[in-house]
């Protein structure tokens, strides 16, 4: 009998701890929660980089919360991220988005980079009227167009990089007249080719031959490099691709004897490319990217770098920022709308002229290019590899995607 009594008391104690402690915690915390879904590839072929995006999202959450959270009509909200894995595949992205929208009931989703994941998520979020702040855009209408009114682009995207990168190439290598173009064969080539042609012509650059597409499952890039080298253009430009892929392309091209400038029309950290390409191949390579000792680094980037390095033990700053900005700009749009309703946020965001990003004050654009004014376009640093050494190449501050 005594044993039963003792068990009863023990069970009562455990139940009290389970039910009363969280309630006490909630009672002590007056701020409400602003739940933002965060989709990234925690598993799958690009998860080495995609996991860092989520870390960037966590840094944004902490930065926002430590600066007082979000104030809507006088009420304080603390950001809570609801992470979900899209497995680096289209079907994984759909199931992840479905879980966030219908199980977790989030009204806003940040993240996703690769075009097929970005496009796949829209099939869930658009009919549900969920606001998305995507991490990147490769220029396909499935990702971002008039048919995706709830989707916003939090960063310049490939088209922004084409505009600024080709301008930078012509300015810094004025003798360049012809270019060879490398683009991963991920469905974006038909949409990016006209953009490269258009902005190339504006800068007096002609594409030699067709676009050199390479499949995402390429092991050896030498055949593609040989193709580019044979064309003997004045420069090679590469739009998109993860650091390892870009490093391997650069290495293969240098091994095939190509010695002219190679310019990346996207955003990577040159140290990552250097690690793969090696010192010998890492020359005359330039891309929109932060050198880790860039003298013009913003205070926010310095905070991201220092905090991220301490917390996560690595230095992949470019991907932290790529994961940080989707949350940071989304929260500003919510605050601007002074409403939690996705429809109000959508209207308010589209009317904003400027918005802050980790890289500095950015503008809203994209009406002519995408058919809707949902693109955040801001300044970007250029970085390079010369004789195997990373170099800061200055910032491009007047980027605009019409």
């Amino acid at each position, binding site marked *: 009998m005594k044993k039963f009594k003792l068990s009863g008391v023990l069970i009562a104690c455990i139940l009290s701890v389970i039910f009363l402690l969280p309630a006490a915690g909630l009672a002590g915390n007056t701020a409400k929660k602003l739940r933002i879904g965060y989709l990234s590839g925690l598993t799958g072929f690009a998860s080495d980089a995609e996991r860092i995006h989520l870390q960037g999202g966590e840094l944004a959450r902490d930065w926002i919360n430590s600066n007082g959270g979000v104030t809507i009509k006088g009420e304080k909200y603390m950001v809570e991220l609801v992470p979900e894995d899209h497995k680096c595949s289209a079907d994984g992205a759909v199931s992840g988005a479905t879980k966030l929208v219908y199980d977790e009931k989030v009204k806003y989703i940040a993240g996703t980079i690769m075009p097929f994941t970005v496009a796949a998520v829209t099939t869930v979020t658009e009919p549900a009227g969920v606001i998305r702040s995507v991490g990147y855009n490769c220029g396909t209408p499935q990702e971002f167009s008039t048919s995706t009114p709830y989707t916003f682009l939090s960063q310049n995207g490939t088209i922004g990089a084409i505009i600024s990168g080709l301008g930078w190439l012509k300015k810094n290598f004025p003798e360049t007249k012809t270019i060879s173009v490398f683009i991963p064969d991920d469905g974006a080539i038909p949409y990016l080719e006209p953009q490269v042609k258009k902005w190339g012509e504006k800068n007096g650059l002609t594409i030699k031959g067709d676009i050199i597409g390479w499949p995402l499952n390429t092991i050896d890039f*030498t*055949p593609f490099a040989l193709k580019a080298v044979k064309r003997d253009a004045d420069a090679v430009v590469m739009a998109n691709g993860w650091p390892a892929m870009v490093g391997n392309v650069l290495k293969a091209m240098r091994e095939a004897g190509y010695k002219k400038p190679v310019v990346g029309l996207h955003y990577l950290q040159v140290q990552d490319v250097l690690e793969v390409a090696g010192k010998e191949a890492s020359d005359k390579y330039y891309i929109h990217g932060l050198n880790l000792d860039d003298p013009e680094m913003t205070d926010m980037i310095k905070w991201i770098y220092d905090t991220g390095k301490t917390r996560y033990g690595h230095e992949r700053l470019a991907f932290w920022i790529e994961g940080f900005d989707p949350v940071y700009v989304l929260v500003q749009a919510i605050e601007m709308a002074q409403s939690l309703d996705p429809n109000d946020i959508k209207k308010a965001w589209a009317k904003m002229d400027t918005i802050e990003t980790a890289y500095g004050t950015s503008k809203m654009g994209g009406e002519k290019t995408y058919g809707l004014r949902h693109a955040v376009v801001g300044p970007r640093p250029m970085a390079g590899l010369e004789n195997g050494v990373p170099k800061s190449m200055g910032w491009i501050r007047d980027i605009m995607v019409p």
Partner: protein
Amino acid sequence: MEYVIEIAINAILLSSMYILAASGFALVLSIMGVLNFAHGALYMVGGYVCYQLAIEYSINLYVSLILAAGIMAFFGILLERFCFRPFYGDFFSSVIMSIALIFILQTTINLTVGVHVRSLPAFVPGMFKMGGIAVSMERLFTAGVGVSLLCCLVLFIRKTKIGMQMLAVSQNADGAALQGIRIHRVAAIAMALGCAMAAIAGSLMGALFDLNTFMGDLILVKAIQVVILSGIGSIGGILIGGLIIGTLDSVLPLYTTPAITQTVGLTIIIVILLIRPQGLFGREME
């Protein structure tokens, strides 16, 4: 002319990479009858082990390569004993086990060191130049190792006692056991050799390209193509199978789009298999 020679050299080099990656996979399939889908993951782990030894512990790169092969061989013995032996003769269970191993190995590496971009330093740096043609020494070294290892493997199987025991087990395990051959011991040696070869391939490819958690997935597909085309049971046939697939993969992208390249490549393999279902040099499977 130089361009044609460069294409031919590149075809041979890429083929040798495929041969290197496929040899261990073919060995385990031929001897143990296990379709080891985890071969790609073992190849990846081998590369990372070599990296840890060479970079984190500053051990000489060649010594690291040998140590990585040794460590993975020991790991292979453990795998055979605890993961595959319980399912000996049960094809489907061993396949499921190998798929489970992929997830375990990939997730372990992904969560521990997978976040970093890594590449092993070149085993043989520099370029080999002849006339107007330049080839990286690293590629030549990888090709040399790939072909040499395959030759050693063929000689080992045909000329040594344990090799002939392997052949006997691959032809008829029950019959071999009745002759006094310890089939589990033979299987353990085959698995150890397969894992060691995976480690060597992963390390060399990690120097040639880069190390990442999912590098094994891509090479596994190529290894399967090479083995199926060569014919299951034919270790030596891998040389020809590797050359065919390597040549297709290095020549077709020069003249057509990536999508067509992959389609044409696979179509040629299918046509060959329609004519010779057992593969080019394979034996008829029961």
